[in-house]
């Protein structure tokens, strides 16, 4: 529409099958709309989103010279884009389109009072028509996409995403906090329900990452700063010193052997304290990169400098070991980011009555994974802290999960891994194994079959959660007796156990909130990163160019993590291959002449999109970062910030039209 052109509006009332027509009188709504100012044509139709429905609009635009289109149908979330494309294809600016939601806002919520619901729909349509008259043309901006990708987290999800992208020829930076990639999966012995050896399927992928020409692997590192927006992020990574030059270390491990400490005496993080390591170590034999780490807390050469340094003497590569190594902060440019930061397990100290940390017989499931692992502290033998083989083992499901006092959600994998552990312990020790469960949740391929198998193997399933744990001897060092209500028997059971395994749930990483700020995304109450849409955009975030994979989004098993990693890689690839990206037109802008430079808006912006341009001290909004939340618009004391698609005139007219109707209809708009 040119300047001064009269609005010619077409209004289309959708039946949405019976979703709308079953409640609202769509015919009368169309007639009502036809009587509104500037409306040239109004119709109702069974499915406006269908091809014939779309064609109907295009035809009217052509025949009636419409320059505004209003569709009264469902939520803009679903079909706003559909009808904008219709407008564009008929030669009308796509932002001369206004959607009125009469399905969710009238038909569904007021299904029990049809007459009033129709009145309300009238009000909504009238307001939409008023707003449509004030719409202005908007042109979408485009940004180029840098082809490199940052993958944060080197667990199975990060590995999978990195390999997919690297194999597609894209440059990938993989940043991992620990000295090795592999994540939790590397700690497992077997995977459910197929009982594949975790190492057998994971280590080839780890090695592939380590060797891939397109992957830059930075372990023992973390992201500390992220600037820019989709297409061109500038990321600062902190590389902590491992006191070994990775390019020089050949992984011969002679330094470890020669360490001045003859015995491993430091609790191994990887083995959750069940095993020991030296101050110089590799976390586990298949670590990638196969480069040693000097632990600054326990290596006296690093800590005090007072060591004879036999490691340096024995090292065959001159200068590989370097106790003067410092932190480095390399900066990289990437166009997209995949977060695969994983999870932590629930800390059962929070439920002290299970005796974890108090009675040596009590373990977490992750600790037991290490005991079962061939490369674990016991070489895969299940032996207790006192060196004995357990004869009775209990596994309590849902520790920290499904509990208002800790985490309300179901962690999804515990039932299966608890049964896997039951199977493995029974297989290795012949112990009586009792699984204490509330419900067995086995909804995956081969899962129910596995449940069946474990039951057949003679694992006892007791439907009832353990409510108390007491030591059998006063010193607490021996067996523990657990109390549970066997709800199927309707009787209390007290069972003495040599080993009590707490099937701990999965939680967001402790620093999830800092990470989400760093990457400008949101997290749920529990700390899991929030996807853009649970069904339709499960790997996207509300920040363009930042994608999610694996358990940082929600608890999931290995197949799901891998699948999501693939999906995240594909989303990144799609952007890279497009080469550029259209930005949402819904962004705020500053009228420089009116801005006083008061800086009120700067700290308010949740997306850090506002800066002060240095020359005149006026606010500038980075439209690639702006999400159109409107906080700055509302807060600006001088009224100098506007927002496309939500201009004051549009909103005021919409409200005014709405109020008219309320005044006329009484409670009509309620």
């Amino acid at each position: 529409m040119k300047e001064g052109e009269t609005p010619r509006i077409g209004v289309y009332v959708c039946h949405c099958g019976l979703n709308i027509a079953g409640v609202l009188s769509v015919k009368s709504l169309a007639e009502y709309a036809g009587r509104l100012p500037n409306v040239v044509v109004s119709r109702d139709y069974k499915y406006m989103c269908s091809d014939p429905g779309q064609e109907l609009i295009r035809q009217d635009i052509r025949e009636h010279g419409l320059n505004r289109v209003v569709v009264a149908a469902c939520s803009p979330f679903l079909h706003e884009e559909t009808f904008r494309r219709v407008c564009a294809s008929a030669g009308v600016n796509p932002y001369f389109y206004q959607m009125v939601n009469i399905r969710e806002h009238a038909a569904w919520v007021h299904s029990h009072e049809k007459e009033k619901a129709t009145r309300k729909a009238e009000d909504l349509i009238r307001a939409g028509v008023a707003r449509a008259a004030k719409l202005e043309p908007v042109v979408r901006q485009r940004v180029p996409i840098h082809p490199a990708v940052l993958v944060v987290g080197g667990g199975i999800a990060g590995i999978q995403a990195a390999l997919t992208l690297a194999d597609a020829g894209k440059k990938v930076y993989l940043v991992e906090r620990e000295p090795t990639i592999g994540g939790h999966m590397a700690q497992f012995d077997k995977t459910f329900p197929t009982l594949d050896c975790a190492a057998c399927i994971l280590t080839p992928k780890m090695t592939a990452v380590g060797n891939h020409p397109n992957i830059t692997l930075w372990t023992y590192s973390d992201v500390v700063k992220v600037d820019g927006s989709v297409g061109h992020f500038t990321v600062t990574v902190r590389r902590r010193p491992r006191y070994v030059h990775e390019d020089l270390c050949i992984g011969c491990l002679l330094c470890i052997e020669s360490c001045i400490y003859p015995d491993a005496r430091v609790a191994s993080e990887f083995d959750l304290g069940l095993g020991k390591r030296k101050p110089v170590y590799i976390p586990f034999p298949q670590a990638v990169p196969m480069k040693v780490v000097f632990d600054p807390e326990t290596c006296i050469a690093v800590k005090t400098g007072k060591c004879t340094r036999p490691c340096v003497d024995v090292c065959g590569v001159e200068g590989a070991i370097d106790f003067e190594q410092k932190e480095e902060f390399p900066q990289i440019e990437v166009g997209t980011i995949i977060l695969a930061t994983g999870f932590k397990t629930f800390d059962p100290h929070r439920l002290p009555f299970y005796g974890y940390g108090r009675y040596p017989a009590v373990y977490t499931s992750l600790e037991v994974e290490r005991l079962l692992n061939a490369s674990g502290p016991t070489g895969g033998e299940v032996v207790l802290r006192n060196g004995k083989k357990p004869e009775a083992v209990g596994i309590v499901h849902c520790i920290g999960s499904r509990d208002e006092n800790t985490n309300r959600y179901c962690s999804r994998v515990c039932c299966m891994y608890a049964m896997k552990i039951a199977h493995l312990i029974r297989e290795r020790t012949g112990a009586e194994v009792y699984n204490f469960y509330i419900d067995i949740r086995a909804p995956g391929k081969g899962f129910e079959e596995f449940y069946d198998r474990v039951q057949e193997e003679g694992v006892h399933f007791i439907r009832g959660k353990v409510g108390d744990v007491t030591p059998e001897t006063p010193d607490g060092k021996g067996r523990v007796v657990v109390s549970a209500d066997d709800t199927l028997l309707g009787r209390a059971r007290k069972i003495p156990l040599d080993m009590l395994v707490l099937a701990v749930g999965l939680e967001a990483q402790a620093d999830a909130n800092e990470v989400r700020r760093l990457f400008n995304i949101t997290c749920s109450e529990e700390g899991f990163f929030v996807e853009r849409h649970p069904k339709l955009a499960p790997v996207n975030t509300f920040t363009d160019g930042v994608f999610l994979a694996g358990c940082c989004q929600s608890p999931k098993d290995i197949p799901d993590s891998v699948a999501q990693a693939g999906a995240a890689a594909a989303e990144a690839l799609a952007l890279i291959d497009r080469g550029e990206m259209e930005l949402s037109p819904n962004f705020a802008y500053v009228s420089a002449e009116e801005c006083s430079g008061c800086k009120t808006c700067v700290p308010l912006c949740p997306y850090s999109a506002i800066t002060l341009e240095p020359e005149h001290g006026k606010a500038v909004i980075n439209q690639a970062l702006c999400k159109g939340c409107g906080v700055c618009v509302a807060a600006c004391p001088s009224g100098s910030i506007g927002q496309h698609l939500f201009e004051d005139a549009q909103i005021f007219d919409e409200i005014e039209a709405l109020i008219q109707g309320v005044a006329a209809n009484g409670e009509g708009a309620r």
Partner: protein
Amino acid sequence: MDLDHVLLYPEGKSLLTCIQCGVCSATCPQEAFMEYPPRKIVAMLKAGLIDEVVQSGSMLKCVSCYSCQAKCPRQIRLTDLLFPLIRGRMFEGGGIPAELQKAFLDVQRYGNPLGRSTSERSDWVARSKVPIRILADRPGPVDLLWNVECYPSYHPRGQAVALATARLFHRLGLDFAILGSEERCIGDCAGYFGEFGLLDALIEQNLTTFRKYDFRRVVTSGAHAFNVFAHHYPGYGFTTPVEPVVGLIGEELPKLRPMLKTSVPHKVTYHDPCCLGRCMGASALRCYFAPPRKLLEAIPGLKYVEMAHHHENSLCCGGGGGGMWLDTYYRDQGMDRLSERVVKEAVAAGADVLAVTCDYEVSRFEDAVKVLGYDRKIVVRDVLELLDESAGGEAAV
């Protein structure tokens, strides 16, 4: 009030979300003796079988220890809401054992469950070497109203604790006073047994007394009164800050510490009363797990040891929810005494002193010690008695 009524409230509705995990029954110290343990009761309530629950007598065995409620993954309010409601229904059928009936009648009549004269309530004061102000005699503003409670007022063992408390208050220079013969039961047994009418009457009566005087805060001798103050009195508009005595003395520890000069060379364990920890639910700020332990550890020569059950998971002395007056019924039912379980754990932990801070517990545990024949192994002392001893006891005031 019946179940339908309960379901009108969000706290009651949570009943419908029960997943029958059985933690409540598994943690219930009385489970073995209940025809219907907590999990079954919830299932029966959901199925509308409330009458069967009432008739079973299972509810008589609940000692309101809050274990089930504290561990319930759905945070269903079993202890302080559902069970009292069910027990309230028991009055209709006359299924209340005589000993408990008498306690209620004595509370109605004398404002204490021991059936002692109201005029004798402050007789113990005469034995105090430090001045104890009684408000009726000397009205006028006071900082601290000390709610002495029934057992410390009447029971000889409780009186010893009350006297030690008074000496500590005196040493700390606290401005305190008591209600003397105007004091009445604060309503614990009534509230948790479902005798809501009596609870209501006691609260009204107590508030009338409180309004006569000018005080800034209240300190309770024991855990049960504190619990009732915290949970029931605010609903009647009583918003004056209330602290249990261990909380108050805990705050004064810096001032008290230099006075703790006499060595108390014992291995001491501490029994967490249900009503100072678990019962506060999520409001961890009002849980008093740390203060008594800090106080004990401040005593020179004392070595602190922990029992198997402690903090949120402590066992119950068995005196709550009317249990104080159901021991005979329990014995007739062939039930174990919870207080004996606690004493056994204390001895197993290597302690020779079981420290307590609940007005019911000194006598309950001393009983248990005698029954078990542990007289030479362990003694029961209130935390305040130990502090008083370390500060020189009666000789030093």
